[in-house]
């Protein structure tokens, strides 16, 4: 795992799509939690509180602001293909924490609205999608949704950003092999 395996043109295209989708989702999530409305942060604070991990108001406040900013930086890095593998690691860590939290509240029978994407529902609880209509915003459906993103993140962690990325553009050019005549 020390170095990302090389991928071809098709593979780089797939990685670009994965980066755009996963990074875009995390940037969207961060925007919805921080800037979408005057009460975006308040809504996320209430969601954090609903998980009942801590009663400390200051800790919940810090989580309310720190989580979205980490999402934003990681999402932007993924989209740009800069530090792709590191960003994928961070996003996978976040997703692992989210999944653990969702499993915990689901097993505890708590009714929580995670405000993961603000008012926007990706799949779970999205009434516009028949398959997921009426599902709880936070429940096993959400675990599946996050697990799917985790797989995308894992692929980016393993393969990196591919050719179409800032990582590739900024990579040091390999020194040309000396010709036998020299």
């Amino acid at each position: 795992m020390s170095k990302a395996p090389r991928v071809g043109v098709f593979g780089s295209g797939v990685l670009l799509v994965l980066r755009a989708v996963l990074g875009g989702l995390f940037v969207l999530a961060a925007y919805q939690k921080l800037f979408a409305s005057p009460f975006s942060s308040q809504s996320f604070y209430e969601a954090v509180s609903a998980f009942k991990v801590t009663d400390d108001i200051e800790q919940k406040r810090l989580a309310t602001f720190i989580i979205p900013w980490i999402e934003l930086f990681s999402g932007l890095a993924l989209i740009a293909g800069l530090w792709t593998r590191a960003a994928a690691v961070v996003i996978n860590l976040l997703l692992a924490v989210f999944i653990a939290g969702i499993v915990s509240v689901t097993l505890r029978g708590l009714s929580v609205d995670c405000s993961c994407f603000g008012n926007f529902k990706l799949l779970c609880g999205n009434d516009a999608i028949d398959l997921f209509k009426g599902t709880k915003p936070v429940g096993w459906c959400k675990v599946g949704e996050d697990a799917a993103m985790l797989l995308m993140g894992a692929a980016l962690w393993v393969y990196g950003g591919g050719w179409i990325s800032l990582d590739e553009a900024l990579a040091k050019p390999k020194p040309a092999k000396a010709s036998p005549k020299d």
Partner: protein
Amino acid sequence: MGKTLFRAILLIGLGIGAGFVHAQLNKQGANPVPLTLQNTQTSTDTAKPPAAGDSKPAQSTAETPAVQPTPEAPKPEQVAPTAPEAQKPAEQTPPPQAPQNDMFISIAQAKELYDKKARGQWDGIFIDARPYHEFTEGHIPGSMHIDKKYFDGAVPKKVRDYLPGMPVVIYCHGENCTDSEAVAARLIALKRSIGPIQIIKEGYPGWTKAGYPVDSGGEVGFE
């Protein structure tokens, strides 16, 4: 792997730093998180008589007429006694309202407002803060539906059109539900002169348990 780990830690550190700064800036902003109800005395002023020796008027702000007493609001002596204290001798009776969470009212007080509204003596609005599908299954007749998600965008049209200057009574699932407080905090933060704001402590379950009238379907009169 070492480089990747270092960069990952750096990304997390950037997020922590930016989040920390944002959290500090937010404290001084217009809507500091968490929003609280402490800047209102709403129902205190509408339902609680001044305490003995309290010569000062209630503190008020220009933006929150919620602190203004309204003659239509229920007086403690007008509502049915619901607590054992109501049967104690007068000299031993503590102030009828709890010292905290003064904006909470009982089902009996809410019913009194409902009856006054029916008689045209109170022009306030009941607000159902539960999810919309629960609202359509049953709600206090004449209620407006506004859950906290309505505020995750521009100021809702209903709030702009119907609520400024109006007393409101908010309810949700009852004592374990915080949605009423969440909506109340947002209405206060909007600074649109909405109020007094009161919350039915026992919520919609208490209302139905008391056998009071309910309605189903969508909103009426708030298009």
